């Protein structure tokens, strides 16, 4: 850990303590510092930036309302990532319910009916990943998404998920296996 990183951690601790003392501007600063990181996690879980944006907002509100309960300010990042991971997973379930409603309502816009010419590759991949993530159990979806975040250690992922490193590895292994099958056509 270099001096810059140490200074940054001290700064974050100071901001967290100020936020706990009801300093709103300090929390706004924390939002500015962490929004990219938590957005990345939410996008990885949800596969879609718009949905992820909602989950991030929900996550930050929960964090703001509950920051007084955080006992160790230096663990703010772990705590925030856990909140956002849970918010994103809940959002994923909401997306699933919405998709089922649309299906029941008799939407005739079936993906298979769209001609390949009309398809947008990025959009199609996004939808395919979203559908695939919907089929994963909550813990597996969280594990594979957290593992995709850079500079997050195994231990930190386990802490965020509240289980052991081995169990997290198992979740990632199973998630990969399932996703490989579900996204087979995009891997070839």
């Amino acid at each position, binding site marked *: 850990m270099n001096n810059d990183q140490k200074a940054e951690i001290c700064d974050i601790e100071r901001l967290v303590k100020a936020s706990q003392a009801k300093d709103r501007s300090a929390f706004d600063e924390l939002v500015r510092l962490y*929004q990219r990181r938590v957005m990345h996690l939410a996008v990885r879980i949800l596969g879609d930036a718009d949905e992820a*944006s909602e989950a991030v907002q929900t996550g930050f509100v929960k964090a703001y309302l509950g920051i007084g309960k955080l006992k160790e300010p230096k663990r703010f990042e772990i705590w925030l990532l856990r909140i956002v991971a849970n918010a994103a997973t809940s959002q994923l379930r909401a997306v699933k319910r919405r998709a089922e409603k649309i299906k029941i309502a008799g939407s005739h816009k079936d993906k298979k009916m769209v001609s390949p010419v009309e398809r947008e590759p990025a959009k199609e991949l996004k939808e395919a990943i979203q559908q695939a993530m919907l089929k994963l159990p909550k813990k597996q979806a969280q594990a594979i998404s957290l593992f995709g975040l850079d500079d997050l250690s195994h231990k930190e992922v386990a802490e965020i998920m509240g289980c052991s490193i081995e169990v997290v590895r198992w979740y990632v292994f199973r998630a990969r296996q399932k996703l490989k099958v579900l996204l087979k056509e995009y891997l070839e």
Partner: protein
Amino acid sequence: MVCVSSKAKIKGVIERVPRMKEKKENIDILLQRNATEQMAGVGWDELNAAILKTLDEAERSRACARRYKAVFKVAAGIIAAAAVVFIAVIVNTGVPPVVQFENRGNVVVKLIDKKGVDAIEIKLAESKARVMVDIETDQRKLAKVDVEIIDRNGQRKENDSRPAWIIISRPEPVFADNGINRDEIDLICLM
């Protein structure tokens, strides 16, 4: 045994699971590609503004909820205090029942001492008739006291089905000074 073998099986599988960060698989690259594409389209300033706006709303809602909570607490406290006072008043100073008699005026019956039979005070008896007080089960149940006037000659009615009569005489002739016949006023019959 089944449990042990299952555990061993799971342990074996876990041990075979490769270390994730060490090797990126195609599926990881695909997921990362989508995430990068999605992140590229995000307007960070707009997102920041949206988050701060949501926080403002949450703060307002919380302040509002706190205010309502305080008002609700005060209101609940007032209601509880009023209820306690009301119950205390009812228990301690029961309202004497006023019983209307046919052609005999009103009689007010009041409990002045809950311990003994000398608990009934005749506040007003317009006529000279004797007063019969029926306390059903418990003297403390003031509201259930029923008063009626028996025949002027003091005889019990033949068809009266009441099983027993107790005659109570007040220890002090309270009303004697007022010129009211003590024998008539102080004889109280309980059943």
